[in-house]
Structure formats: C-alpha cells, structure tokens
C-alpha cells in the first residue's frame, strides 16, 4: 500500500470503529454501576427538588381535573415508546431519540420531570438502558436539565417571535445537546483526568460521544418539528385541550 492508501485505510477503519461499533446508541444513559456511590446519591439528591415541584404540579392538575390522569399516563407511555423506536439514520447505526424535548414543549418541564423518571425506570427495567443506581444522574440530565432548556428556548423564541417551526427545532436540538453536555460533565466530575482535572476530562467525554450525539440531536430536532407540524395540522382541538398551542391560529 502506498502512503496515501494507508492513510485512507486508517480513516476508513476509524470511521467504521466510530459508527459501526455504535450499533445501538440510546441517548446517553449512564449505565448501571458506572458512577461511584457518592455521585449516585448526590445527583439523586439534586433531582429531588425538581421532582417534588413536578409532583405538586401534576397533583394540582389532577385535583382540577381527575380525567387527566390517563392523559398523563398516555403521555408517559408515548415518550417511552418514542424513545424506544429506532430512528432513521444516515450511517445505518441504530439510534433513538429522547422525546423529552417534545414532552417539555407539549406538557411543560415540570410534568416531564416526573414522567421522565418513570420512563427512565422502565428503560432500565424493560430495556436495560441506564440503571437503577445511576437513575439520579440520568434523571437530572434527561428528565430535568434537557427539558428545562428545551422549554426555556421554546419560550424565548416565542418571545422573540421566531418562526414557530424553527423554535421547535431549536428547542429540541439544543435540549438534546444540553443533555449530552450535562451527562459528559457528570462523567467528568466522577472521573477527572490526572492532568487537567474535570475540565480536560469533560472535553474527552464530550469528544468521545460527539460522533453519535451531534447527528442525533439534529435528527431529534427534525423529527420533533415534523411531529409538531403534523399535530398542528390534524390535532388542534386536542392540543388546545392539553393546554398547548394557544398561540396557533
């Protein structure tokens, strides 16, 4: 092989390793047993206030209208099913969306935090993604941080009168990216590198997961936009009933 052929070969191998190996990339669930005990507890504790707020908001909603319990449960099941589906991908790898961005836009971030932790428990128990000990950390990144950012961006775009579809896309994509950054940071905090500490370690985790997570975030944005578009054209009354789309004519 000539030098050029060799370097092409190397590139091809690197490509195959990054994309071929990732046969099933769930949005970054930290696996069972990957975090030291102290971090498991700490992230769980940080999640508690958000979950409590979410719980109270759900409770209030149910006190006003008892019927919404099945709607809430269906929404949870919907987020779970959406996140368990293989999404279209260009590289042929099999990846999944989080669905929490969509949830945050439709139901608000506090309700999603509760639905999110239930979905995460089921993902651990039924799909073996994530884990029971890392539930706290995963809840914080996926059911709290991501949805809150999505919702914030969605609201911000609305205030700035950005095109609605663009704002949905931005909200879902950036929410997903934020989840990925938070997870990398969580991993980096638990495993700082010898040189450079947490910062260098965060860069490493971000870099390692970037090839799967960056395209995933964009695809999640596209899919969420398509879903919201379809919903708005076919399901306005239903959307209004769950308190979404007051601004859509």
């Amino acid at each position, binding site marked *: 092989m000539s030098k050029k052929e060799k370097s092409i070969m190397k590139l091809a191998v690197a490509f195959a390793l990054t994309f071929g190996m990732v046969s099933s*990339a769930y949005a970054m669930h930290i696996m069972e047993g990957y975090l030291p005990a102290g971090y498991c507890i700490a992230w769980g504790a940080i999640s508690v206030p958000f979950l409590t707020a979410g*719980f109270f908001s759900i409770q209030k909603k149910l006190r006003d209208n008892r019927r919404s319990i099945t709607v809430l449960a*269906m929404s949870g*099941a*919907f987020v779970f099913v959406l996140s368990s589906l293989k999404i279209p991908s260009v590289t042929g790898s099999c990846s999944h969306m989080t669905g929490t961005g969509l949830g945050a836009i439709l139901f608000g971030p506090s309700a999603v935090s509760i639905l999110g932790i239930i979905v995460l428990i089921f993902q651990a128990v*039924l*799909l*073996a993604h994530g884990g029971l000990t890392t539930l706290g950390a995963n809840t914080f990144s996926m059911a709290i941080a991501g949805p809150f950012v999505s919702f914030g961006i969605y609201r911000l775009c609305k205030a700035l009168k950005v095109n609605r579809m663009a704002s949905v896309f931005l909200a879902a994509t950036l929410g997903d990216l934020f989840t990925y950054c938070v997870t990398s940071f969580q991993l980096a905090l638990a495993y700082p*590198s010898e040189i450079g500490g947490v910062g260098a*370690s965060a860069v490493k985790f971000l870099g390692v997961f970037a090839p799967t997570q960056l395209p995933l975030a964009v695809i999640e944005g596209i899919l969420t936009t398509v879903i919201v578009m379809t919903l708005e054209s076919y399901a306005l009354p239903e959307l209004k009933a769950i308190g979404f789309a007051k601004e859509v004519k």
Partner: protein
Amino acid sequence: MKNIHTIDFYAYESRLKGLNPGLKAVVAIAALLICIGTGNYLVSVTVFLTMGGVTVIWGGLSFWKYLGLLKIPVTFLILGTAAIVVGISSAPTGRFCVSLPGFYLYLSDDGAILSARLIIKAMACVSAMYMLVLSTPASEVINLLGKLPLPRLLLELMNLIYRFIFVMMDVQSRMKQAAQSRLGYSSFFTSCRSFGGIGANLFLVSLKKAGTYYDAMTSRCYEGELLFMEEVKPVKRKEAAVAAGYIAVLLLLLLI
C-alpha cells in the same frame, strides 16, 4: 424495541419467577451496593459470575440470549472507558503518547487500572440488575416500589404507563407496517417524514384512548386507586438462608 418484549418475556418465563420478588430485590440491591460501595474487584468478579450463573442455570435462560443482553450496555462502556483511558495534555507524558496538532493524546497506567476496575464493576452491577429484571416481571417491580414510602399517585402513574406502553407499541408497530408497505421508509428523508407522521398519529391515538380508558375505569368503580391482584409468594426458610449466606460471602470476600 425488540428488547422490551424480550426482557419482560424472559422474566415471565424464568424458573425464578416463583421466588418472592422482595427477596430477589434484596439480593440484587445488596450485591449492587457492595460492588459500587467498595469497588473491590474480587467481589465484582464473584458477583458477575454468580449472578450470571443464577440467571442462566437456576433461571433457565439460554446462555446465548443472556450474552446478547449483556451486549446492550457495551457501546456505552467502550466509549466511556475510552474517554477515561486516553488522556489529553499540552505536554508529552504517559506511557504511550501520540502527538496531534495542538495537544497530545497519552495512555497512563493509572487510567488503565482505573478503567479495568470500572469495567469489571459496571458489568457486575449489570449482571446483578439482570438477575432481578430477568426473573421479576415489571408489574412485580412496581409492586415492590409500592412498599417504599412513595406517593401513591406516582405508583398509579407507573402502573398505568406500564400498561399503556404495550398498547402504544402495538399501535405503533401496525402504523409502521402500513408505512413500510407503502415505501414510507425507502430513503432517509421519507423515513423522517414517516417517523414524524407516525409519532404525531401515535400521540393523537394515545389522547383518544386516554379518554376511553378513563371511562372504562370509572365504569368499573375507579375512584383514584388502582387495585391489582398480587400473587403471594412467601419466602421459604431455605431461600432466605441461601440469600443471607450469599450476601455474607460477598462481605467476607471484602476482608481478603
């Protein structure tokens, strides 16, 4: 999506299903806590082998199917561990060092030892959790959570969501089949459109069904509390002794 049917299905098939779910949970959680709390690799290896052994030999799950399930978290393990083993620095250091424009990639002994321990520990934890979920159907896991001081509303939501997941899966698979047979997944962009369409439709169907289910529940005297029949599976003295012995052995291994 195949997995959801498999893990719950294996749990119903398992020969360990007759055991008291609380006992299985105590063993699994004790193993998890000892592994995570101490990080002792001898304990981790023991847990990995014994929990796998219990699931495969006692539970009667085929070895190859178990291996297939163990592969699920491997992607994360490889990527996550790669990030720990390889370091970046501005000056050349470590055992192996690769120079890249602007910085150096290096491998260090400490990083390698840390990640080897981490892999063993994480896989041990996974096998402990598998012992529980591959022998205990999800409904029993929810019942177990019900014994914790959690708000009832949360458990009610969990029970409902668990049931609705299967309803939604069924609806989704039929929608997907319909889209597929009409070439809805022929290219990347059509797949995105079909996926989005199915997602939106799924949401609509779920909202419609939600109303119907509430009516069905109310007509059966639902007043804010779901009651399910729970099979009573008493703990036999021998089983409790085996479980206690196992945890004791794990703790003893810590002393070595």
